[in-house]
């Protein structure tokens, strides 16, 4: 069941043992992600990952990990389950922490000598953490306990 039970929550529940540094993440990124997402998380053929902070209320909002995503745990979960597109699940846990660290670093959220693991990742407060309004119909259900 452990192999199937891959989901990660904002409180860190589901995060596996392991760790990764920004420095290592840069090389993981260049090898596995840059072809689609561009150098430094910009200018690729697929989703832009970095920049765009302050653009959400403008005519041309730029939604990236740094400008839009409310939880850093979602970044680990998504890379772990769905990336790289052609070979999802092929990155090791350490490489996944590392590349998540590098993407957060590109957005100015984690310092260049930063490390992520199951304790430090959920503690990160994303810039757009307060940017979401749960639908009134499900607000009470949506309330985190």
């Amino acid at each position, binding site marked *: 069941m452990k192999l199937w039970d891959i989901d990660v929550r*904002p409180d860190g529940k589901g995060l596996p043992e392991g760790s990764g540094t920004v420095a290592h993440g840069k090389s993981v990124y260049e090898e596995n992600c840059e072809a689609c997402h561009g150098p430094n998380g910009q200018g690729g053929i697929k989703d832009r990952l970095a920049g765009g902070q302050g653009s959400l209320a403008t005519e041309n*909002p730029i939604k990236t990990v740094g400008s839009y995503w409310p939880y850093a745990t979602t970044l680990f979960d998504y890379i772990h389950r769905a990336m790289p597109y052609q070979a999802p699940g092929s990155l090791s846990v350490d490489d996944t922490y590392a590349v998540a660290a590098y993407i957060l670093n590109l957005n100015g959220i984690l310092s260049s000598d930063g490390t992520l693991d199951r304790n430090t990742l959920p503690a990160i407060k994303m810039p757009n953490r307060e940017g979401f309004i749960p639908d009134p*119909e499900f607000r009470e259900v949506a309330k985190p306990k």
Partner: protein
Amino acid sequence: MHHKADSRDKSNLSRRRLLTASAGLFGSATGGRVLADTLADVPRREVGAPLSGQSDRSKYVHITRIPQAGPGVRKVDPFDAINSKTPLNKLVGAITPSDLHYERSHSGVPDLDPGKHRLLIHGLVKKPLVLTVDDLTSMPSISRVNFIECTGNGWENWKRADENLTVQNTHGLVSTNEWTGVPLRFLIDLVGKDHESTWMLAEGDDAAGVDRSIPLTDEIVNEAFVAYGQNGEPLRPAHGFPIRLIMPGFEGNLNIKWLRRLKFGDRPWMTRWETARYTQLLQNGKAEQFQLRMDTNSVITSPSGMMEIRSGYNRITGFAWSGHGKIVKVEVSTDAGVTWKAAELNNPVLPKAQTRFQMDWEWDGKPTKIVSRSTDEKQNVQPDRKTFIDQVGTNALFHYHAQQTWSIDSAGRVRNVLVTKRWRPRLWLFRWYPWYMHMTSGGRRRSKR
């Protein structure tokens, strides 16, 4: 002889009269086109094609989905497509044929062997279970006709209207099928869900492992089901074979295809598809989240974008649907939203299913705009474009459900446009422009001299 010839002439004449009369009747019903050359040309009947294992479409019928990408990104290679749209303009009735049900996949269509596929149900439950497809098909089942709509349906028209779009381009991400499967409530009882579990994670077995958090409201627990059947046969691979979740009335993305896991918890997981995607960015930079219900909607499918009509009789028809329940009223305006008339609804009108509407119309040949608006049983009325955009802005990307307007020019060409009834009075104000100029700046300029 003479007499015979006379009687033959007479019968030919009466036949000609009948033909003329019927040509006139049907001709008016199809905008002046004559249906048959003459009934005297009796076609030779021949033994047809041999019986076969399945029925294909007639060679005279050309009806397909179109693979597309994001807003404005059409005519893409299927490899680059992210969705494939239903030809609403070529459908009749309310049910979408299985092979034409719209498709939205995030990492391709997986090839899943039903003999090896498993559904894991676990989390805050007393008895976690692993079920096979055979386990599911042997359980008590329900069948339900309901629409599924991609949350991105309508997204071509957020910022501007490309006048070259058909209704397949603008609204082709909604379809209605009969789905058969096991009620979620039955599975919940089977595993013994804990009382403190208020959310459920549903996860697919596609490459991306698409997953969504689902609030366990009474409505959802009572109506959701794990489906293995589509229009009377096993699911098509593009639509989730061997099993998928059906969430009547809610975002298409919640109807997780290729379902492999249901996990019960006490809060949402905040997956990528409910944070980075499928959230609606408002003008103030904040975003609506968990706006899961699909809104009250309708669209005229004929006449619609890129069609050409003739003056005189035309039949207006289209679809209405709402994630809130049944459609109770569809109104159609043929004068750009100034006056409205109730359309007929075709039976059966089912909750959370596409409903066919139709209305007779005599077009006087003058340029105009036609538009429909629906009302559902919870009294939600589909908003006009201006009211809708005033509320949510133009950056929301998802949940577009404003009234769709088609313009018709004097040549009968039907085109996609963005206008509201509120535009007319503003144009009318220009009539006062000379007077206004005279009374204000023009007058001041004169007095300065």
